[in-house]
């Protein structure tokens, strides 16, 4: 009986490892290819050959995703607080409006934004367009993880503070925000990683605005010179940055706050 259990556990580990390798293979391949120099030797020269053109794009993408995270935090936390702590009419339609963008294909979202930028919000045909697109597009991620965090936070802390005479704003700043802090880190992580790597909306916006973010630059290079090692190096750099952020987060915070959003 005991041996039987061991056998099925081994089989399940083999299956899990196999699927994990399958998931990881695209990154491994592009990293492996980026290590081969054009003259067929192992080396890091690919990582230096695109230095002047590529790093400004990475910097731009980093700035964009940081701005997105900050803006999303500012607008998502009060909204999540109201959605979990108050009862009011029209809650469900409002929630659907806020997270509806998540259920729409990115290409249609990007096209509708380009049309609206041409016709209504003319000043958005610049970096501002990227900011509003990312902020609206990744609001659902931040909102859902904030809602999960607020649901876990016991209401008794706020009630105790209210009994001791703290007003609404004071309660929010001194009680709710410090307690909610760790819970929303998962939202920060996911919004950062997703917006840093966002491709399809940035790709469509690249035409009208003339601004290339790092993933769009990678795609551009793939379709022009996909076989060359420096393209693999560019793709690897972006993935390594994202994976490092995820790894550091998991090392510091762990997985507990990711449950309910991308974990189960």
């Amino acid at each position, binding site marked *: 009986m005991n041996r039987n259990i061991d056998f099925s556990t081994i089989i*399940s*580990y083999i299956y899990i490892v196999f699927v994990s390798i399958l998931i*990881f293979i695209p990154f491994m*391949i592009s990293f492996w290819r980026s290590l081969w120099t054009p003259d067929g030797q192992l080396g890091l020269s690919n990582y230096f050959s695109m230095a002047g053109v590529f790093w400004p794009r990475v910097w731009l993408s980093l700035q964009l995703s940081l701005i997105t995270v900050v803006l999303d935090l500012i607008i998502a936390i009060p909204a999540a607080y*109201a959605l979990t702590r108050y009862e009011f009419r029209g809650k469900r339609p409002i929630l659907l409006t806020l997270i509806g963008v998540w*259920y729409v294909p990115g290409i*249609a979202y990007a096209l509708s934004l380009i049309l609206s930028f041409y016709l209504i919000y003319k000043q958005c045909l610049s970096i501002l367009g990227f900011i509003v697109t990312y902020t*609206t597009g990744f609001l659902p991620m931040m909102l859902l993880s904030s809602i999960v965090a607020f649901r876990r936070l016991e209401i008794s802390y706020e009630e105790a503070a209210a009994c001791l005479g703290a007003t609404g704003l004071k309660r929010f700043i001194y009680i709710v925000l410090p307690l909610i802090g760790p819970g929303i880190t998962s939202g920060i992580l996911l919004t950062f990683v997703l917006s840093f790597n966002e491709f399809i909306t940035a790709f469509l916006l690249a035409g009208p605005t003339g601004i290339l973010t790092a993933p769009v630059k990678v795609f551009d290079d793939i379709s022009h010179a996909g076989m060359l090692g420096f393209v693999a190096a560019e793709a690897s750099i972006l*993935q390594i940055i994202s994976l490092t952020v995820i790894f550091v987060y998991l090392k510091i915070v762990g997985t507990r706050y990711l449950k309910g959003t*991308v974990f189960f």
Partner: protein
Amino acid sequence: MNEYFDKIKPILFILPALMFAVLFFIIPFILLFYVSFTRGSTYFFQPIFTLENYLKIATNYIPDFRNTLMLAGLSATLDVIVGYPYAYLLLRKIKFLSDFFRSILMVPLLGELYIAYGFWWLFLPKDPFSSFLEAIGISPFAILYTPVTAALALAIYTLPFAVLQMGINISQIDPVLEEASSCLGANRLKRFVHILLPLSLPGIMSGWFMAFGWNIGAYAIPYLMGGVIVGQRVLSIQIRMVGLLMMNYGLAAALASALVIISLVFTFISLKVSRGVLI
């Protein structure tokens, strides 16, 4: 005064987020539907209202819809077949390194672009994997630009979404039920067919629909892996080509509207069958 303020307070909290969503999500989509009823790019000058965009979709763009739905359906099915055991084993069997394997699932979140690129390399010459494929009798070049590879790559891209939906569902099934049925003499197959499968059906359905919804919007994978016959004729690529390269915004808006309607219908079904797994 104070009562009135209490009533309006939640709305005040939501207002900034709602403003973003209305300005940059609702209004653009109303505009998209609106533009889809105008001819060509006339909307920008003197709008001519017509239904010909939708007629054109019905006459010329059926293959694109067929390809998109076929690719998305194929890879969503693959996701469910591969992802169900993955979710089940992670929850019931795997104790050691369980969190590590769950973290692996975050890798496809980085986006379809890198998956498409890595997969594309995989089938090119002088790769260890392609020589392996040749050794077992499959020519990697013969399958590179076909729906098969595109569906495989899409399946890897959307696997986390399917696994997440099914995992949430399986974690709600009490393990005691399985133990009880095995005490009553059911073997593995019987346990799966009569106990596990009926209980996890909502999770499987919502996982399938979720993966499907992400697949129909994919761009980089069909572009890089699908080849000319299938890859160039999926909706996302056509929308960009018609809209941004041929400047026929009316037709592109109509195609995008059709895509949105498809994905909303599938999302609606998925939310119905999942009994609120997500919200």
